[in-house]
Structures are given as C-alpha cells and as structure tokens.
C-alpha cells in the first residue's frame, strides 16, 4: 500500500467503503450489528497500528483511551445534553490530550518498560471507570446514552445508520492514517521503529514523531469509543479492560499484519466475525480464537496482509518470491 500513489490508495479505500456500505443495506439486523462492531474495532486497530506497526511501540493503554472516549461521550450527551456531533470531536480532543500526556510520561522508557508502563495506565484507567460511580455508573455501567441523531433524509433503519457511521469513521481513520504515515512525521516514525539510536544520530525529531504517533492513535481510539457508546446506549467497564480490549487490539494488528494499515482491518474483520460464526459451537469458539492466533504468530507473523501480498505477487509474477 505504501508504494501505491496516495490518490489511488484513497480511491480504493473509498470503493471498499462504498461496497461495504451497499452490502450493509442488504443485511439483517444481526449482521449489521456485527459489521458495526467490526468497523469500530477496525478503526481502533488502524489507529493502534500507527503506533505499533509504524512506530514500533506496544501500548496497552489503548483500552483505557477507548473507554475514556466512550465515557466522555456518555457524559457529554446524556448529562450535559450535547449533540453527538458536538460531543464526538470533543471526545477525540480529550483522548488526544490524554494520549499526549501519557506519551510524555511513557516515552521516558522504551521496549518492555514502555509496554509495562502503559499496562499500568490501562489498569488505572479501568479501575477509575469502576470506582467513580457518580461519573461512570461504576460496575453497573452507564445507562441511557442517546444515539447519534439521524438526518431525516437518510431513510434507513437506525441499526443500518449506525453501521454506516462506523464504516465512515473507519474510512476517515484510514485516510488520516494514510496521510500521517506518508507525511514527514510518518517517515520519522518509521525511522524510530527501525533504529532509534540511528534516528537520533541522524537528527530526526524522535520525540515529536513518537508523540505525534501516540496522540494520533489516541484521538481515533477516543472517536471509536465515543461512537461505540452512542450506538450501544450502554457501556460498562468490562468493555475497556486491558486483558480484553487492550490485548485484543494487539491480536487484531498482529493477525492482520503490522505496518500495513489495511491488514488490521482484515484482522478486525476476521476476529470479530469468528466468535460470532462459532457461536453455534460456543464452547469451542475461544479455543478456535486462540489456535488461530498461535497459527498466525508461528506460520504467518506478518499477518493476513503479508499472505495476501505474497499470493498477489505469485499470481502477478507467475513465479516464486524472490
């Protein structure tokens, strides 16, 4: 995707979005819901990949940032009466600011220590959702969050409208991520990922590059959280745990393919659909999920994206990989 001209990448993304949106119109309520959740997780995964795949930093605080966006939207819309469309950018700004603060703290460390530090922040965030019942509803959750206002001219069922919103947010996130990774900052992030010491020696603005990557991913995690809260009408701390959402994001990006942007979308599609598809054999679904992760990590560590790229090269070149 990197090698492809920007306008072509955006055009392909727009076509994929249009096809997905058109497909959504034909689905029943349940599959529309699966698409909606899949698109929200794909948004999270694309944003997360900017940090993990393009900058090389594993954050486990993103479940909490996702939750921060969700609770902020819940408070702004249900307690303060703001429209979802006003609350949405505020949630993005809030999580972006929180992400920048976390980044300033966390980038004092690197490698394993960075992951452990963000793990701590993720745990603190989840605990705060639990122990501040006046703000968050505590363990009982936040009930009665208004849904996004639907324009009168869009004559579709509410669940379809939510799916279209989730797909739109995914498209916007993808395009913004594409612009980011192809910018000078993105190139600096790649240099940081490849060799931090060399990047510093070359005079690359390491601090600003990784701060920008963390903030970028935090903003879109917050937007995804806000949309999730608004379309669910109910949120609870369980949805924002480190062991749940935090590690799930890592799985989506690893299975999909780190550093590809479209790979995490495939990872989100697969890992959202899989538990639903295996619902008939519910006792086996988690087992299958784990086995799939093992298979990808052992046999295809570059994820689905690399498998598809390899297959495309073979078909296109008609021969072996170099």
């Amino acid at each position: 995707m990197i090698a492809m001209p920007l306008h072509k990448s955006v055009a392909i993304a727009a076509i994929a979005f249009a096809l997905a949106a058109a497909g959504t119109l034909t689905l029943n309520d349940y599959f529309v819901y699966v698409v909606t959740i899949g698109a929200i997780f794909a948004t999270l995964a694309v944003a997360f990949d900017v940090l993990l795949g393009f900058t090389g930093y594993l954050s486990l605080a993103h479940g909490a940032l996702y939750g921060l966006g969700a609770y902020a939207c819940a408070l702004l819309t249900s307690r303060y009466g703001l429209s979802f469309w006003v609350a949405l950018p505020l949630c993005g700004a809030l999580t972006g600011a929180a992400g920048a603060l976390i980044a300033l703290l966390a980038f004092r460390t690197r490698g394993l220590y960075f992951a452990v530090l963000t793990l701590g922040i993720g745990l603190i965030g989840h605990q705060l959702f639990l122990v501040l019942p006046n703000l968050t509803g505590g363990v009982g959750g936040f009930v009665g969050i208004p849904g996004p206002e639907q324009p009168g001219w869009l004559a579709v069922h509410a669940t379809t409208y939510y799916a279209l919103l989730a797909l739109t947010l995914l498209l916007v996130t993808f395009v913004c991520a594409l612009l980011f990774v192809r910018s000078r900052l993105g190139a600096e992030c790649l240099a940081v990922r490849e060799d931090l010491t060399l990047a510093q020696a070359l005079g690359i603005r390491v601090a600003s590059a990784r701060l920008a990557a963390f903030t970028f991913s935090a903003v879109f995690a917050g937007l995804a959280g806000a949309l999730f809260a608004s379309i669910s009408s109910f949120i609870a701390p369980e949805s924002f745990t480190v062991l749940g959402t935090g590690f799930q994001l890592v799985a989506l990006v690893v299975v999909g393919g780190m550093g590809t942007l479209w790979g995490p979308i495939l990872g989100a599609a697969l890992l959202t659909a899989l538990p639903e598809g295996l619902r008939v054999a519910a006792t086996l679904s988690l087992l299958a999920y784990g086995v799939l992760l093992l298979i990808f990590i052992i046999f295809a560590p570059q994820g689905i994206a690399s498998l598809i790229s390899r297959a495309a090269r073979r078909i296109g070149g008609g021969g072996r990989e170099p």
Partner: protein
Amino acid sequence: MKTFITTLSLCLATGLFGAGPSIAQAQEIAIGDLHPITGPATFYGLPESRGIHLAAEQINAAGGVKVGATTYKIRIVTEDDQASPTVGVAALRKLMAADVRYIIGPLASGVAPALKPIIERSDKVTQLIDGSIADDLTNGKNIFRNQATVSGYNIAVVELFKARKFGSVAVMTDRFHAGFMGSQSKLMADLKGLGANVLGEEYYKLNDTDFSAALTNLKGKNPAVLLIRGYPAEGALITKQARQLGFTGQVVWEMVSPPSTVLKNISASEMEGVFNCIPPTTEDYVKLGDAKAKALDAAYRGKFGEGPGELTGLSFDAVHILKAAFEKAGSIENAAVNKAMGELKLADVPALTTKYTAQPDGRLFDDKGQVDLRGVVSVWKGQGWEPMTNLSQ
C-alpha cells in the same frame, strides 16, 4: 417407471411423505432462551436453559398453546450470552434478526442493562428476565421479570439481622456484580439502622482465590457476622479461608449457591451453619414437599440425568407465564401479549413452581413489570441448604 417417477415427484411436491398438507402443520411461537451456556456462569445458565426446554416440551406434549382458534407449538431458540454484555448484545441481535419476539433471560446482572435500551426501543420484542437481580431493569411495557430484585434478597438479610440482633458486620462483595454493588450502600444503611455496626467493607472479583489479606483485616475488627455477597465458588473459598484464619463468628451468604458448586471449594463440615439469604430455590421447594417442584425435579432428572439448578424453577415458570399471556391475549402480537402480561393474575398461571406473592389486586407483576419474590433464610446442614422456619433459633 414413468408413472412411478411422476407419482414420486407429485408426492414430493405436495409433501405427502412428510407432515404434508393433509395433516395440518402446527404453527410455532419462537421463544428465545438467552443464558450463559458457556463461560464462568454456566452452572447457573445451563440449568435455566434446560428448564426452558423442559417446560416447552411439556407444554407441546400437552397440546401446545391455544391462542383463539389456533394451537401453537413452542420452539425454543437458544443463544449463549456467556454472561458478557458484548456477547449478550450480539446474541440478542441474532435472536431479533431471526424474528424471535419473546426472550427469556438473561441471567447476568451485567448483561441485562446492556440489553435494556435495545429492547425498550423495539416494539417487536417482549422480555421476561428470569435471572438478573439488578434493580431498575423492568418497565412494565415490554420488559418483565419473574426473578427477585437484589432488594428482595436484602430483605432476608435484614430480617435475619433483626431476628438475631447481630451487633456488627463485615462485608465482602464481588466488585463486578452490578446488583450487589448497586444495593450495597442501601443495605449497609438498613443494617446500621438495626444497630449493627458495619466494621469493614472489602471487595473481590470473580475467579479470585486468595482472600487472606482482606479477611485478616476484617477479622482484626472482630465482627459478629461476615456477610459475603457474590458467587458461590468465591463464597466457599472466602468462608474456608476465614475459618482457617480463626474467624469464629457467623458467616452469612447472599448468593444463589448450588451445593455441587459450593462443595468443590469447601468441605460440607466447614459449611455447617452458614446462612444464605436468597429467595427459595427449586431445591428448597422440593425439600418443603411442594408437589409442582417435585414434579419438575423428577422430570428434569428423567431428562437430563441430574437434579435441576437453583434457578431452574424460575426459567420453567417463565415459559408458563408467556404461555398464559399468549392465551389471555388471544394473540401472539407483542402489543397484545405485553398488555396481557401486565394484566396477568397469579391464578392465571397454575403451573408456577415458585411461590410468588400476588399484587394487592391479584396480578402477578406490578406496574413496573416486577414480581414480588422475597428472600428467605436457609442454613447449611449436612450436604446442602435447608430452609429455616424460625430465624431466632
């Protein structure tokens, strides 16, 4: 040969080899069974699901549901919510997409609030909650509950403290149990009002195994009662560890606790004398000699090869409540059935195995769609719980 093939084709086309048009095809009402069939709450959810299937099977065998001139068979569609809000919402969406308009469940107090906004927005779904005890779930319009609320559980705790005049209490509560957490401050205020000093409140979570730090802290305050609110696996471990740490006071549970689950983590002798404050379970009714409960117990054992779960009776009742509502409404449309549910008298559902208290006007549900089902006190004797008839002794 040609004639044979033609005849065969006609037979297939008209369905004569099956229950074809010559025999009237029974119409069906699909009822969704939304419970944790897998995951940490399976020991509650599976017996509930089985109770629903058993009730439907018995109703169908007895002729089905007579709605006006039409007789319907009940078809149960089971979905597993794994006691998780996210999975539960997806399961509900799946049932709704399959045009299942009547839902029994869920069990988990974390799942029910996540389903509520979706069900409230729909005029094509009626929900009957048979498990979750969290407050404020019903609306009396299309969400009803034949399980107690957590406030109903607390009544038994308060009655016990009143009868025994306990002077102090220390509490351990499952932090992730929405119902218990939501009612904790009210219960503590009620106990203080009875003169019981609340010496400490500690929290734990599902699957915790070491409670010694919290228990050492609480034991140091020398409470007369250790009140445990949550799930039985942890309840058993807390009780065992409290005894090992030398706590000699009264242990009181507030949780639905199948003895088979309890005894995995504690011996029967260590459980001796522990009180439990919940509404009577199917097993309690069987022990009290209730004929309907005994019939349910026998049928369940016959079908599944083991005894019913503690909430099986509620799930079994839920199917009969819906049946009565369909017949009273004379329709299977949600609006009519919802209205009938609200007007249903306790006497309209003779098959109920649980002893609900009728509303003052004889109805089963109050205006908010909630039954009156109160906690009672049981005591552990030998291998299981025994209902207490005299709280003072």
